[in-house]
């Protein structure tokens, strides 16, 4: 199981003639495939479309907020727009993005398996995702929803807008998420290659494992909750309706019992991506492997005990406020463990500054900044001031856009050669990465200031004194959008014309690089036998190569 390395061989890289992409031909062979790699690619296309859609909504919102009064749309449109931005980005992009695309594609490769445990269920999960997405978008066409992505009762049960298809869509997307999570857990338990104990799994696998546990445990509750809201809206059962004796706060409890852990469904795989990529680009063993692995499980566990910090101003008891605030701090501890280990990995590494590394640096900044502001808003006294202002929006986007989308881009660039066997243009990659990191800061740092000054979230109009910062934010958002456009162009170009990458262009020690890039249909010609730890860059008798541009 020697690692193929281009550095020692001067042969030009070859593109494997038969691989998973061309082993079977025709659209039908894709739609009926049970190959985890193809399902991953179809997820990639789907979530990119969702991201595009959500991004268009986001840009429309930012343009609307350029002026204090009406700019390009009416107030009702604005309400529908921010709801759809939230729903599309969270349920159609964030939650399936990294597990659905990279989890599917890489998990079996990293484990040395031929496929995931239940390939047909895997395909089912994709079809459920498509069904759910169709329903959500149908709801949008049928008039749109104006509740925000949180569907708080009693507004959601009384709003005249179309809610039911969206709720049903989210219910079905929940199924998709459960099936994916279940599949991954069983895969990790049963399909590790000979020689791979749990402590030899790559950190991305650990992160996906922790994510899957949350998906399996938390998602049924949101399924039930949105179902109840739907029934409530159609049938008037009074479950969350205070006028009939129901308790609206109960809805918030049930909603956040899923939706707080759901934040970790989004961010844990992101952390896994960074753990894997950082070792490659620092060309160094990951520092504190066990601590990073366990802290993923720790976050998954503690994440279930923190939901109450969303209810500080909802009429929850003061006792619960305090209890949940204290527990929320623990999430900070586990995240900090990871951050320290990542930074320690970079320290004295043979750093190669490539596009993914720029995103990694952005990621580290965003997760620390977003995480610290998260600790701040999870403090009761501060949250009373900041609740439902742009401060929360900015915090949330620092984690969700800052951390998760950076990680998505890291993964996309780092594993692009793995998936397609071709290289993207490094120069343009760096330009786009710099634009995105800068544009991101320019978008959301003004929002922190806005929120602190008291601008509420989800408001259509605002006083004139907020305009300068809003304009700054919109300018930053344009920069972001421009960066994404560049990425889209050079990646599509690379797909068609990109330089052939060879099997392991980064000279990474990740197990997914053991096979060819792109991999053959059944991943490995022979079942690999794992004889070393993951991310091991200093083998005896082997010099660490310095690849510095």
């Amino acid at each position: 199981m020697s690692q193929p390395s281009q550095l020692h061989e001067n042969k030009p890289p070859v593109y494997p003639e038969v691989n998973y992409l061309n082993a079977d031909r025709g659209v039908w062979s894709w739609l009926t495939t049970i190959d985890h790699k193809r399902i991953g690619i179809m997820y990639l296309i789907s979530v990119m479309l969702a991201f595009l859609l959500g991004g268009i909504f986001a840009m429309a919102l930012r343009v609307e907020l350029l002026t204090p009064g009406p700019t390009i749309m009416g107030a009702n449109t604005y309400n529908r727009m921010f709801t759809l931005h939230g729903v599309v980005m969270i349920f159609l992009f964030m939650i399936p993005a990294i597990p659905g695309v990279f989890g599917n594609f890489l998990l079996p490769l990293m484990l040395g398996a031929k496929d995931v445990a239940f390939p047909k269920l895997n395909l089912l999960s994709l079809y459920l995702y498509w069904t759910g997405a169709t329903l959500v978008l149908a709801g949008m066409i049928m008039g749109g929803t104006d509740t925000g992505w949180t569907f708080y009762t009693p507004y959601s049960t009384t709003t005249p807008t179309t809610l039911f298809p969206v709720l049903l869509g989210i219910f079905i997307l929940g199924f998709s998420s459960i099936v994916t999570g279940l599949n991954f857990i069983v895969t990790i338990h049963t399909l590790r290659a000979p020689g791979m104990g749990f402590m030899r799994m790559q950190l991305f696998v650990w992160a996906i494992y922790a994510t899957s546990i949350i998906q399996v445990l938390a998602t049924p509750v949101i399924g039930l909750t949105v179902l109840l809201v739907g029934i409530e809206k159609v049938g008037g059962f009074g479950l969350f309706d205070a006028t009939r004796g129901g308790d609206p706060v109960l809805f918030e409890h049930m909603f956040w019992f899923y939706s707080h852990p759901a934040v970790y469904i989004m961010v844990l795989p992101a952390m896994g991506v960074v753990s894997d990529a950082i070792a490659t680009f620092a060309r160094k063993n990951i520092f504190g492997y066990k601590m990073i692995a366990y802290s993923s499980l720790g976050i998954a566990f503690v994440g279930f005990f923190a939901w109450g910090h969303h209810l500080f101003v909802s009429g929850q008891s003061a006792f619960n406020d305090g209890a949940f605030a204290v527990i929320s701090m623990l999430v900070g501890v586990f995240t900090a463990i990871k951050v320290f280990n990542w930074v320690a990995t970079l320290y004295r590494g043979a750093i190669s500054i490539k596009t993914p590394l720029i995103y990694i640096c952005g990621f580290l900044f965003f997760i620390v900044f977003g995480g610290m502001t998260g600790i701040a808003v999870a403090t009761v006294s501060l949250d009373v001031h900041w609740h439902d202002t742009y401060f929360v929006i900015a915090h949330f986007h620092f984690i969700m856009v800052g951390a998760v989308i950076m990680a998505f881009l890291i993964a996309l660039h780092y594993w692009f050669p793995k998936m397609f066997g071709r290289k993207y243009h490094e120069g343009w990659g760096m330009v786009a990465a710099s634009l995105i990191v800068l544009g991101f800061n320019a978008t959301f740092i003004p929002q922190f200031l806005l929120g602190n000054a008291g601008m509420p979230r989800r408001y259509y109009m605002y006083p004139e004194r907020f305009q300068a910062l809003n304009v700054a934010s919109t300018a930053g958002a344009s920069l972001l959008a421009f960066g994404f456009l560049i990425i889209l162009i050079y990646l599509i170009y690379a797909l068609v014309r990109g330089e052939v990458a060879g099997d392991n262009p980064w000279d990474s020690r990740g197990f997914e690089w053991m096979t060819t890039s792109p991999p053959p249909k059944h991943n490995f010609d022979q079942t690999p036998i794992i004889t070393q730890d993951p991310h091991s860059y200093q083998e005896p008798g082997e010099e660490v190569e310095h690849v510095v541009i």
Partner: protein
Amino acid sequence: MSSSDAHAPNPHLAHHYETIEKQDYAVRLGMWLFLGTEVLLFAGLFLGYTVYRHFYHEAFHEASRHLDLWAGITNTVVLITSSLSVALAYNAIKQGKTKLCAGMLIFTIVCAFTFLAIKGIEYHHKFQEGALPGKWYHYAEVTAPGANLYYTVYFLATGLHAFHVIVGMSILIWILSRVLRGHFSESYYVPVELGGLYWHLVDLVWIFLFPLLYLI
């Protein structure tokens, strides 16, 4: 395909598993995970129950007295017995007794129908009395505040449970058809086992619903 599974031609072994034992292990683990998600699904409803029982203790007590206790008891006995028969079906197929297994499955399915029929009659009575959830509630005998929420929870919980009964029954019918076609033997019986597990879960939920709804 790797060459490792060439010497063990088992039609039930998928290409990405080395051995049938490993595959069975994976399938069982997957099933238990699924059962775990079902537990959490019902946990949400039980939460709704406990919360509103906490608020409207008296109304819940009074309203529970207006359910048909004998229907509840009968249904409990029916489900427990069907749980026994599905366990016996599994036990039978494990020993290769296909006919016994089929018989036990048929008995289980009959129990499921009985359960649904009794539940349907109960629902019918409640509809006539006006003991309906939320805004439809107009039952004259229980007017304590919160009684409407008791029936909301009652219909949601038993409705979701009945849905699971229907799903479980459909699965068992499908498994029965495969048993009758001779798909299973003492060397391959995992689907019977999994179908049985699902049916036991349906029983488990009812074991909690029965005292909470009929007896408190």
